């Protein structure tokens, strides 16, 4: 996969120790790191030195990170990865629904951080060449051919209902990213079904029975409890 070497990362974080860790770890991986210690600096930075990724701490001294996310999302598709000490699922969902791409709870390891950055960069790359919408998606043993509307596991054809197919395709196209229940319901069922979380769960269970080797120990369709689902991509 393409590793965007030298990509510019904006780190928005008020804790000096945390900034130091991020700067060191990311510079070592040849990323260009710019720093902001509050929302005001971050606003300046996103416009003056447009980054390819934003790492955003939610608890900023001059405002809520979620508001900043919404603001930036209004005019930019730059991936925003929220990092926060607040481990509550509500906060994660709020940030994701506001337009954040991913979420990391402090403390986290550097590998986890790099994995999320890779996923986010890949997703942007996919979005920017939208011409590939009909291209084949391949994740591990799973293969989706949107043109033929075919799904195969290890070469074996799998029969899916329309909803199961849409659900799987949505997850696969966002492989590696966490999608909230709301986001999935809105995409697959439409905007009127966003409260039917249990419906989504039923279909997810059915889908797992068809595409997972052991539906109770999924390798593809992972549950992010209280938040949503994520398709594993590596």
């Amino acid at each position: 996969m393409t590793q965007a070497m030298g990509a510019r990362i904006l780190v928005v974080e008020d804790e000096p120790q945390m900034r130091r860790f991020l700067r060191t770890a990311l510079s070592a991986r040849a990323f260009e790191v710019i720093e902001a210690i509050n929302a005001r600096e971050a606003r300046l930075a996103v416009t003056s030195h447009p980054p390819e990724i934003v790492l955003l701490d939610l608890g900023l001294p001059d405002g809520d990170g979620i508001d900043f996310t919404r603001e930036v999302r209004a005019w930019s598709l730059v991936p925003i990865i929220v990092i926060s000490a607040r481990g509550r699922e509500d906060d994660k969902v709020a940030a994701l629904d506001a337009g954040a791409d991913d979420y990391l709870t402090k403390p986290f390891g550097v590998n986890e951080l790099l994995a999320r950055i890779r996923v986010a960069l890949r997703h942007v790359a996919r979005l920017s060449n939208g011409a590939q919408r009909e291209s084949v998606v391949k994740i591990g043993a799973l293969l989706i051919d949107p043109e033929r509307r075919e799904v195969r596991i290890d070469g074996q054809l799998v029969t899916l209902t329309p909803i199961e197919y849409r659900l799987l395709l949505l997850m696969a196209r966002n492989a590696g990213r966490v999608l909230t229940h709301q986001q999935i319901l809105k995409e697959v069922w439409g905007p009127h079904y966003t409260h039917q979380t249990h419906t989504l769960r039923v279909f997810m269970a059915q889908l797992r029975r068809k595409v997972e080797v052991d539906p109770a120990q999924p390798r593809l369709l992972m549950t992010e409890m209280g938040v949503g689902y994520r398709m594993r991509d590596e």
Partner: protein
Amino acid sequence: MDDAVDGQTPYNVRPPQVVASSYAAWIGYAAAMLSVAVTTLLVFWWRAHLTPPDLVMLYLLPIMAVAYRFGQGASLLTSALSVAAYDFFFVHPYFTFLVSDSQYILTFTILFVVGWVIGGLMNRIRGQEQEARDREFQTEVLFRLGRDVMTTLDDAEVARIITRHAARLFVGEAGIWIEEDHGGVRLAAVTPDYFRLSEHGMVVVRWCCDNGQSAGRGTELFPDEAFTVLPIAMGERFGALAVRIGDATILKQGRWGLLEAFSRQASLAMDRARLGEEARSAAVRVQAEAMRASLLSMASHDLRTPLAAITGAGTALRDDDARLDPLQQAELVETICTEAERMERLITNLLDMVRLESGATRLRQEWIPFEELAGSALMRLEKQSRGGRVLLDVDDKVPMVYVDPVLFEQVLVNLLDNAFKHARMAELISWRVRADRNRVIIRMADRGPGIPIGQEERIFEKFVRGEGNGVPGSGLGLAICRGVVEAHQGTIRALNRAGGGAEFRIELPQPPIPLDLYPDEREGCPDEGEGS
């Protein structure tokens, strides 16, 4: 009889009926006239076959009957009427009140005296009967009150039960006021809810609290008030039970004793509640103190240990860099990482526990397949599972469970983590999920060393760790499990399996599964066309 408490059940014994009302008296007099008329008619019909003494005897019947049923007043009237009728119809000259033979004067007198004496006797019997019924009623009332107030130790609830009983018993309204530390009085309970006292009424209540004596209607003090205030002794201070008695006869009948007995019983109940409350808050204080102590000792030991390792390794790397070979350096770095992870787990557990205990956690129950919960829990423990698999056996009748997904996943994680830590063969862990009417039963069994005998309950307590196995842990995992399960109104217990190993058994109440769980595929979903 149903066992409803707080004065809702009707009394078995009716409150004693009072006959003294004018209405009842008129009935008695009417009965007197009617019975004499009927007797006279019968006697007149049979007069040819009767001797004069028989005639007199027959008149004794209505006198006795009326005396028995209606008391002395009516029986005297019956006697008088009987004498008059006997004289008028059966004594020569007939159909006049004149008497030709003076012997009849004696007959009249005897008839009258007999009526009077029988009436008096009957009155006494009736009085005793009434008294017995009163006593029975009083016993029943006090028994009920005593029984109902035993159901709770909450003094506000006790006060409420007392006022309910008082309002029913005295067919009126009742309220309890309690003396406060600073000298004022506060309202503890009223029945019905709108019952309040006037400004002046409150003065009487305060007087009663200050002096510990009854006041108001039926007493010498403030007899013009519409209500009666009885003192309730509560330790060194007093409360006041104010009753507006709707059934005036209760006071008239001199049944003051019932009121006093009632207030005595109320005093006992309030006192018991007060002492219970004191004992309970003392117990809570002791428990909080113990909790704080163990929390502090845990924080100082369990948090400092990993911190010490991190500090040691970190400073070694910083200060002794030159003297460490690459292998040693790698070892120190590894120490920092694992100890930091351990600290994180401890802190997460501590925060979870505190959140659960403080009630800050709001339960968000949703329908979720048990499979998904188990899968997610296993996923989180991928590292600890050492490649072990878990046997999952879910009843087809349990497609979904109704739980808070985040909290319940934590329960499964903690239980699994426990099993992985203790069980030698991780692959022998099994989950079984069964439906049982309106409950779901989740059992997790392993083939580990099991639970030390007698510790089955203790392991759910905070900061209690399995003994002698050297397995690190916060001693909070199972306490959190119990906290979460109990927040779901469920139960969790641990037992040892036959053949070795432990079993944890969770029972949760479940609402009926909603009908819209399996919506129509087609609904709201165009067949073709893709989302972005």
